[in-house]
């Protein structure tokens, strides 16, 4: 794994001295914040999550309370004051007269909820299957990994579309579809690192101590699989959010009653040819910021958590 050469071809010695007083977590944090782009992405992501959670207390309007919406306010360009004069539609309004700032914050809630919950369920399921397969070994392992490979050889969007064709619309259905699409990545990741870890000396040592297989798998191997799992989880969550938005845009995802960012963009599509760009544009920017910040965090986590790449 690591190159055991003290000097490079020029005879330089790699400076590798580090303060020994740091805990691994402190070192991880300081490594992570070494990169200002990644640090900014993490702060942005945190802000987006906070905004989504606090949306009901932040925005001027509950976009789904019909009493607060005036159809006369529909399709107002950004910066127009509302008809009641109570506040300004800084990002304009959509076809039903909803304030877009409010709709985006609420939409962010739904998008993040669907993405994160499907990610967590898929991670739990995939990791469990991957570990169980590795633990069982033999035919079962081969069979499970064949299924994983087979599923991964098909594009996620196709699998999701087929599931929705069968299951129908709805938040629960979308989450099921997203979990089905994602679990295989986690299973493969866990199994891959479990195989690597399983060959290491500390596992042999644990075996010599007479520990049970289950204990070795869950107490010794699983914790060492976590770093790659975390990296995959960030990337997969970004994927899930993007996929949900895509499905909703196609009209086969979330219903109008659960308007995620994808639904908002989809609603604006019909007004776009008449030049009313903002109805699709601003929810899209919110979606983009969310996905980019998660991807940047994941990208950098990969660098920081990967011991082979650490400098």
């Amino acid at each position, binding site marked *: 794994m690591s190159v055991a050469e003290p*000097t490079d*071809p*020029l*005879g*330089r*010695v790699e*400076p590798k001295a580090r303060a020994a007083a740091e805990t691994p977590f402190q070192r991880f944090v300081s490594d992570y914040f070494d990169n200002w782009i990644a640090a900014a992405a993490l702060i942005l992501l945190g802000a987006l999550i906070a905004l989504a959670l606090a949306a009901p207390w932040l925005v001027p309007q509950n976009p789904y309370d019909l009493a607060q919406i005036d159809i006369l306010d529909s399709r107002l360009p950004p910066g127009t004051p509302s008809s009641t004069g109570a506040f300004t539609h800084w990002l304009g309004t959509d076809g039903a007269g909803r304030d877009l700032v409010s709709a985006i914050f609420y939409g962010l809630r739904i998008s993040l909820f669907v993405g994160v919950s499907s990610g967590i369920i898929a991670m739990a399921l995939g990791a469990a299957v991957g570990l169980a397969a590795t633990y069982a070994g033999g035919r079962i392992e081969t069979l499970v990994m064949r299924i994983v490979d087979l599923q991964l050889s098909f594009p996620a969007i196709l699998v999701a579309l087929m599931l929705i064709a069968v299951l129908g619309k709805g938040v629960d259905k979308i989450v099921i579809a997203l979990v089905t699409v994602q679990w295989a990545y986690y299973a493969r990741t866990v199994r891959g690192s479990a195989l690597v870890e399983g060959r290491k000396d500390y596992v042999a040592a644990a075996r010599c101590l007479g520990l049970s297989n289950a204990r070795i798998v869950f107490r010794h191997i699983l914790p060492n699989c976590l770093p790659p799992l975390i990296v995959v989880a960030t990337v997969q969550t970004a994927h899930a959010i993007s996929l949900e938005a895509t499905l909703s845009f196609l009209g086969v995802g979330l219903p109008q009653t659960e308007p995620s960012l994808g639904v908002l963009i989809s609603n604006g599509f019909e007004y776009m040819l008449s030049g009313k760009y903002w109805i699709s544009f601003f929810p899209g920017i919110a979606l983009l910021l969310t996905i980019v910040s998660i991807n940047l965090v994941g990208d950098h986590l990969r660098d920081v958590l990967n011991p082979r790449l650490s400098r």
Partner: protein
Amino acid sequence: MTTDALPAGPTLAVEGLATHFFTKAGVVKAVDDVSFTVSSGEVLGIVGESGSGKSITGFSILGLIDQPGRIVSGAIRFKGRDLRGLSENEMQGLRGDRIAMIFQDPMMTLNPVLRIDTQMIETVQAHRSVGRAEALELSRQALDQVGIPAPERRLKAYPHELSGGMRQRVAIAIAFLNKPDLIIADEPTTALDVTIQAQILFEAQKLCRATGTALIWITHDLAVVAALADRIAVMYAGRIVETGTTDDVIDRPLHPYTRGLIGSVPSHAGRGGRLTQIPGMTPSLIDLPAGCAFRDRCTVPIEACGVAPGVTSPRAGRHVRCHNPQFADVAP
């Protein structure tokens, strides 16, 4: 091939060459104040540990030093012309034509996805406007010259279909393809078996004598140059510490480092005798301490070693960079 009359003097004269690498960690003086000459038909062995700057010296001559490295001073006179004054285009014309190079690892030097004939023909056609058929015939002859059986078949092969020794012969054939005036061989036999190593040494020496090509043989293996070279230059920490004819240097080493090197070669220690070793490691070339770079490992340091030694010539044809050269005979 043009037969322009060789100007009088050595084929290559390197004077005060310094190549430094400007890294984030500091300036690496990989080659510092290196001077030597090599003449037509002559074999010069450059000996040193890894990291002593011998490979960088070779790349400097060819103008193949990449960022963050740079030749900072000195002259590289090739047939009287200073190569440092040439444009990149002119250098490209010289490389592979007048000056060729052979690399250390034959597994890595040939492009894995191109056939041998492609890699040979392009070398001919880069420098001479000849047709494909003629270039192919020249390639076939070159393979034949280095002792490759059934060259027609090898030409159609991909590198992975040949053994390591065979690949190195191909690399040597490519180097000799345009009948260069100078070949720089950077540890070309290190990665090979001892028997194949001997064959390749023999072929290379024979070819140089026959064609009048000057040869610089870079190695860490004193035994190899002892069998091959006319003269030896010993490098340590980016500097040449001792030069002279091969026999003279090996029989009467002046520099303590050369003595250490010779003492660590099995054949010189005698059967059953203890091999000596040089204590310590090559120093980091970043921020070399003032004074002699070998001081900390030296068996006979004196006070003057705190100041970097200059080059002295205690005997005709011998040069040494040491305050305390050893004149006593090497213990048998």
